[in-house]
């Protein structure tokens, strides 16, 4: 009885019925190594390759484009509608910063950012694609970093351009004073940074929960629940908690970028300036570390 082990590589392999261009035989004769060596040159890969891969994933799915489209439509549409409504009802906007009218559109756009951020990672668990991704790139850190980079950049760029255009149109529609440079910067770049980091938080939660619907629900709850709950905390003893929830809720934090003062008596001075962004960054960093360990330790 022959044991097929000792046969080793034999040339002359005929491919199946669909064989395309002849496949080169990679095993170099007489190199002493047993087995097959691929003729495709092996070049060390780095984060850039993973980023390229993630960019292909984002751009090649229509739902991404749809979600981003809705996000642009919300910021632009609601921003312009509010401006038009204000222009129709009041004669004089006086010394107000008109860019603040962009707030409602951006607030609704957070839903798109959350959805997309969660889906970037959880959809891979839904389809089983995550297994292909991690067999192709076993470094969990690299996969997470590439996803985060590509997604946050996409959100930041789209949001910055959209808020800029919306702001310019609002200023044009309403004949008020022109906003200062800082007001412009905070309501475009600042808001977009905040959205991008909120998106990263969603991505991290998506990686922790691994279930699209569940993670989206958690994130929407995080945005809306503090406000809703605060409304029903009527008891005197809960005043402090109620006001803290108002002040630190995501919508209130977002409004800080438009110059609103969210300080309430019992809480003292609420976050101002760029503080909401730092708060969000810290929360996201913690969630991201959790997502990394989850990806690294848990079975896929």
């Amino acid at each position, binding site marked *: *009885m*022959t*044991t*097929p*082990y000792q*046969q*080793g*590589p*034999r040339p*002359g*392999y*005929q*491919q*199946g*019925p*669909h*064989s*395309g*261009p002849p*496949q080169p035989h*990679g*095993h170099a004769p007489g190199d002493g190594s*047993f*087995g*097959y*060596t*691929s*003729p*495709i040159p*092996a*070049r*060390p*890969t780095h984060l850039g*390759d*993973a980023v*390229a*891969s*993630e960019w*292909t*994933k984002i751009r*090649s*799915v*229509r*739902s991404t484009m749809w979600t981003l489209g809705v996000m642009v439509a919300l910021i632009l549409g609601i921003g312009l509608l509010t401006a038009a409504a204000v222009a129709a009802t009041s004669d004089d906007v006086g010394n107000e910063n008109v860019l603040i009218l962009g707030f409602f559109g951006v607030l609704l756009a957070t839903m798109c950012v959350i959805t997309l951020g969660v889906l970037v990672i959880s*959809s*891979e668990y839904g*389809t*089983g*694609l995550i*297994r*292909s*991704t*991690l*067999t*192709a*790139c*076993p470094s969990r850190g690299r996969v997470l970093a590439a996803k985060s980079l590509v997604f946050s950049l996409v959100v930041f760029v789209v949001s910055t351009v959209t808020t800029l255009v919306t702001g310019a149109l609002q200023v044009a529609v309403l004949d008020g004073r022109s906003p200062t440079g800082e007001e412009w910067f905070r309501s475009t770049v600042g808001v977009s940074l905040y959205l991008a980091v909120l998106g990263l938080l969603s991505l991290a939660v998506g990686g922790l929960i691994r279930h699209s619907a569940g993670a989206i629900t958690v994130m929407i709850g995080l945005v809306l629940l503090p406000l809703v709950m605060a409304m029903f905390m009527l008891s005197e003893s809960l005043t402090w908690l109620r006001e803290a929830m108002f002040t630190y809720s995501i919508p209130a934090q977002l409004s800080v970028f438009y110059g609103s003062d969210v300080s309430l008596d019992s809480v003292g001075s609420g976050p101002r300036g760029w503080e909401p962004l730092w708060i969000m960054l810290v929360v996201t960093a913690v969630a991201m570390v959790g997502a990394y360990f989850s990806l690294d*330790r848990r*079975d*896929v």
Partner: protein
Amino acid sequence: MIEVTGLTKRYGRKVAVNDLSFTVRPGVVTGFLGPNGAGKSTTMRMMLDLDNPTSGSVKIDGKHYRELSEPLKHIGALLEAKAMHGGRSAYNNLLCLAQSNRIPASRITEVLDMVGLTSVAKGKSKGFSMGMGQRLGIASALLGDPEILMFDEPVNGLDPEGIHWIRNLMKGLATEGRTVFVSSHLMSEMALTADHLIVIGQGRLLANTSMADFIHENSRSFTRLRSPDRERVKDALDEAGITAVEGTGGVLEIDGVEPERLGELAARHGIVLHELSSQRASLEEAFMRMTAESVEYHAHTGPDGGGAPATGWGSPGWGTPAGGGNDQGKGA
């Protein structure tokens, strides 16, 4: 070369994979056989570092999976056919993988051509049939032209032409000197493709042997005899010192005696025979006997409660569709 040492996986109190050790060598197709729930897929996922073993280790060419810098050029795996994003085209699905491993885009067209999906490369993979999904999965395994290939139940959902194609593909890949590791729960399928066999049941290693040895050891050969004059046949056999077992339907089964000798014996006694044939027990049955105690999901349909059927020696149902008969004779 894949080396598995003491691999164990526990889910709570349940042991899915129990102290598995084996080596998968290059140049041959190694079949990984076991009933449903035996731990085949869990083992394969641990080999790819997707699941963490409770204990034990897997080395790919002497390295841990995470130490491979561009893993697709070392090892290609087909785990689930539908592990693709439905909204993405076949080409883009492969492009994501290729980019992460610096595989030139020209290779994508090459593998799509190899698996016969060129005409639907730009179409969404959502509309793919199971067989097409399986082919796309095989394309992604071949993408890096790796020296190790791993296929989890590759013939699932393929049409006969596709099954024939994947068998030839696997044999061809092994002939080129690659390591080919393929799981299946069908012995008949393995008999046609695998050169080496690793059998597991309830996570434990049951056999690690060459296919030829497995066939030799596990297929019982006997002679089947049928006569209208059964009592006289029995007497004649007794006289000659041959023991016969009574089978179903008035058939006698005789172990270890050639039909020639029995025919001559019958002729000497002037007994009429209606049948005299040489039989071989199917490999499928040998496999079922081996895994009988370790089958996790028994179907309770027959009076014997499923598991290994009591009858069915040499029944034509197993292994015959593609010349299984020839293969069964290989060990003789």
